[in-house]
């Protein structure tokens, strides 16, 4: 397994270059703002740099992705405070959280689209009209010749289904709640 010695600056740069963009996207999905996402990832790498003596992580991608996602969730929950999990605790937790839980964002998005494709045809159509084409419920109802209440019901059912299918959207948040 690749175990970078991030104590050496050229290795650190390599890690940064390898993961920077992906981590920004991970943060962006949660905070919804490009600049904030960049700030969080920058802070994360600063944190890693300062902790580089303690940092010896077998799977940096998985640690980084979790850490940035959790920090982003914390950020929106705690009014702008960013906390990263100390790498030591991650090593301990690695036993509690199976590593299969780690999925890069592309495969999460693929899973999301797969789940969307499993929605009944009408529900899928309505959900995408609302979320992708950004149509108002009223416009969707007019376009499809159905009532606005049908639109709302279908969207609610779609949310409930997708939330169940894509449970990683909430999974890590629950894990956060156990933190002291």
């Amino acid at each position, binding site marked *: 397994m690749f175990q970078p010695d991030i104590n050496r600056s050229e290795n650190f*740069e390599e890690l*940064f*270059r390898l993961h*920077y*963009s*992906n981590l*920004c*996207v991970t943060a*962006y*999905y*949660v*905070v*919804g*703002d*490009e*600049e*904030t*996402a*960049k*700030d969080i*990832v*920058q*802070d994360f*790498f*600063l944190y890693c740099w300062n902790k580089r003596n303690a940092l010896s992580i077998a799977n940096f991608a998985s640690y980084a992705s979790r850490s940035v996602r959790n920090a982003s969730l914390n950020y*929106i*929950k*705690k*009014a*702008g405070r960013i906390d990263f999990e100390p790498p030591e605790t991650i090593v301990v937790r690695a036993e509690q959280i199976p590593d299969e839980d780690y999925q890069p964002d592309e495969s*999460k*998005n693929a899973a*999301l689209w797969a789940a*969307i494709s499993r929605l009944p045809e009408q529900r899928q159509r309505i959900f*995408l009209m*609302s*979320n*992708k084409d*950004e149509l*108002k*419920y009223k416009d969707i109802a007019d376009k499809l010749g159905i009532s606005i209440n049908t639109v*709302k019901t279908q*969207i*609610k059912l779609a*949310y*409930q289904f*997708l*939330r*169940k299918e*894509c*449970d990683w*959207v*909430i*999974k890590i*948040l629950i894990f956060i709640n156990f933190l002291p």
Partner: protein
Amino acid sequence: MEHADKNIDWDKLLALSDGDLSGEDIMNLTEEEREQLRVAVELKLRIKEEQLLARFPVEEGWKRFQNRPKVHRTIFSYWKMAAAILLLLTSSITVWLFTTKKTQTPQLANYTPSHKAEIRLANGKVLVLCDSAETEKQGIVDIKATNNAVVYAANNASNTTVRVDTLIVPRGNKVSLELSDGTKVTLNAASSLIFPSSFNGNTRSVTLTGEGYFEVNGNENSPFIVQTAGINVKVLGTAFNVNAYDQTIYTTLVNGKVQVATPGKLTVLKPGEQHLYDITDRKEEITKVETPLYTAWQEGIVYFEHSSLLSITKVLSRDYDYDFVFNDKELMDAQFRLEIPHPTSLQLLLDQISRISGNITFTVKNRVVYIDKK
């Protein structure tokens, strides 16, 4: 995993997601409702966003990291934050919840567009148009693609299968395309064209969304047809512009002759005439126009005549891949005349509008331009 659905007032949440937002509603959400709203926001971002990686270039990040500036972060409360996200997502124009630090240096509107144009080939392959030229041999045509131009050249292979390719031009881009019959098409930002890689039938048919300027290579035996959502334009050897971005489709004839087919009616246009068709109420109309006003875009000229700031910003957001937010709605109706050949950045245009008006200021934050009165 079960979640406590009983604590969720779906009516309220759905109204929020639909953009009917009030501060009071947001403050009174239950824990479960906040959670569901956050999930909804994340799902929406994941659905809406493609090629996000390009927005976070490594080089820029690494440079920033090496300089290690103290990160200035605006402190939001979570609910202000969630509201801000929802507002951005629903393109609403209220920004009262958004409080930013005053000490930040102003950003300039000089980002390059975040997405590149691409051709989706019939065989599933995707050619992304970038600075380095790419050549692709596909059956009876050779495709040469560079940053902003694509040429389909017929070669001598004797394969008669016709494949259908798609050119997709995102916001902030403009691409010229030469089809295998020699017809030249300029596709404007936020547009796409579906076309056969070679033509061998009685007609030459392409499908357009958005806006395109066509210079069709005349061929009596094989008329050229541009299909859009509402109309077909049949060409009899000619130069013309089709703008099908919105409810109204504008077909503007520069020279030659075209026939516009709407459901149930055929109309022949003369040079200098413009045909308007409303998709919804199916009304059509023909007017005499100054054609340069409708075709200047394909030469890279920004040209507006007595246009409202609202209609100008609609075009600029496509051309430069920025969103516009009117903090002062009155300004939407401000009228301008603009003629700027080859502006190098959006900032230049914003400065110009500012100067002409004397009372309008533009504030840029990331890819959003906020419009205020001075």
